[in-house]
């Protein structure tokens, strides 16, 4: 859904920068302070997995639905993962109804890359009859309240929903897949976390609030796997970063990702799928 032009008076941008020069932010945080994170899982019993992620006043819900389907022709021996984020007008006066716009698409694809590149879900364990029947995982993400940093909030909601997903066990009889009553978690290998930075004038802050986003020139989202590897990067908006700014964000981001990860549900055990 497309957003109307978000305008911020120049004077407000200047006052944010003036504060940053003193190392301060509008809401009292330090430049490297992340807002409080809260994850609520299993809010939607009807979904196979679900989570509400809150970062300060930003709130996002994600639900996981599992179904049996065909694999993609180029990956016949893997399950299918589809991530879809929508910035619905519930979440902000600047969001409008309608089909997903470029911002929705960008968030969907960045979350998808964070999950896929980190190999969070072992898709090779989700092919039931390779080439024929595989598990299809739909992760649908809906923004409920937008107070900045929807990228990280969507990532948190999506990964938390996947971490708590319970799908039916299956048996194959005469080349037919039978779903059993018994449930099991997804085969999870790591818990990727994204950390987003905003550049405002010549300053960098982590986890921008909505007001800071209005003033930001560029955005940098870094996703880290459990062992600190970088698994997805996305620079956004018509500003730029220096080499040093990126290296600095990498150091700080990786540290923060460890703190945030503590709020995530644990990696489920006995995720064997054979």
């Amino acid at each position, binding site marked *: 859904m497309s957003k*109307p032009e978000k305008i911020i008076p120049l004077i407000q941008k200047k006052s944010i920068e003036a504060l940053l020069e003193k190392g301060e932010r509008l809401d009292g945080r330090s430049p490297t302070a992340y807002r409080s994170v809260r994850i609520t899982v299993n*809010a*939607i*019993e*009807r*979904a196979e997995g*679900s989570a509400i992620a809150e970062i300060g*006043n930003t*709130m996002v*819900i994600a*639900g*996981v*639905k599992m*179904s049996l389907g065909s694999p993609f022709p180029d990956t016949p021996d893997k399950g299918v993962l589809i991530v*879809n984020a*929508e910035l*619905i*007008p*519930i*979440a*902000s*006066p600047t969001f409008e*109804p309608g*089909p997903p716009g470029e911002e929705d698409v960008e968030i969907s694809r960045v979350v998808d890359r964070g999950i896929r590149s980190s190999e969070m879900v072992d898709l090779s364990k989700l092919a039931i009859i390779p080439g024929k029947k595989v598990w299809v995982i*739909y992760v*649908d993400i*809906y923004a*409920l*309240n*937008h*107070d900045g940093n929807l990228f990280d909030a969507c990532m948190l909601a999506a990964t938390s929903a996947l971490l708590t997903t319970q799908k039916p066990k299956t048996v194959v009889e005469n080349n037919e897949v039978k779903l059993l009553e018994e449930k099991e978690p997804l085969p999870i290998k790591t818990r990727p976390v994204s950390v987003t930075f905003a550049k405002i004038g010549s300053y960098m802050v982590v986890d921008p609030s909505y007001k800071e986003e209005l003033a930001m020139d560029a955005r940098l989202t870094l996703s880290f796997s459990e062992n600190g590897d970088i698994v997805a990067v996305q620079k956004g908006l018509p500003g730029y970063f220096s080499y040093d700014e990126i290296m600095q964000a990498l150091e700080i981001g990786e540290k923060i990702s460890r703190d945030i990860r503590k709020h995530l549900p644990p990696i489920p055990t006995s995720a064997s799928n054979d």
Partner: protein
Amino acid sequence: MKSDQAIKLLNDEGLRLDGRRLDELRPLKIEVGVLKNADGSAYIEHGKNKIIVAVYGPREVHPKHLTLPDRAIVRVRYHMAPFSVPERKSPAPSRREIELSKVIREALEPAILVEKFPRTAIDVFIEVLQADGGTRCASITAAAVALADAGIPMKDLVAAVAVGKINGKIALDLNHLEDQYGEGDMPVAMMPGLKTITLLQADGIFSKEEFKQALDLAISGIQVIYRKQREALKKKYEKMIRTVTGGGS
């Protein structure tokens, strides 16, 4: 009526599968002001339905030519999250969602003093997070509270419930199973204080006698829901008072 399979929806004592009497509502919980950005908002759990509603407005309309010179336009978007139902729903609006957006708007609008805000829009955004039968009614109930929370002047709240026919008996507040395997479904919305009906739909087969009985039952259920709506609003109001006067949250 949607399926031929004869399913026993009432036990020998005349109780329903979830233990309710025929004239009994499902558990109902309403929270007011759950979203920070919206001008008004509400969250409802009605049975296993979980629905969130945001109200924005009165506000400017884009494009301008949609405005009306003598009143506000009311816009409603009813949407089901893909994960709200057993089989994932495509996120694109279905014909059902288009119709329900229209009838919900027409159920709410009679209560809103639209002539107070010419050339503006009042937007009601409804997201069904989990569906369990009767989502349009629960949406209306929550939306009316969200409108009040937004400070939109109203003639009355609007409260809604579906009645239906299961195993030949008229029953209040059908759940998903009863809706699917019952013989009729009739959603009703009212301005309870003014005793006027603002939404009425039905499918299934009702004799004239059954229809009257069903409508009477709906009206009695709506009174209960109306009370819950006012309690929820009062609770938020009291909380605000407490906050303002330093009484804490």
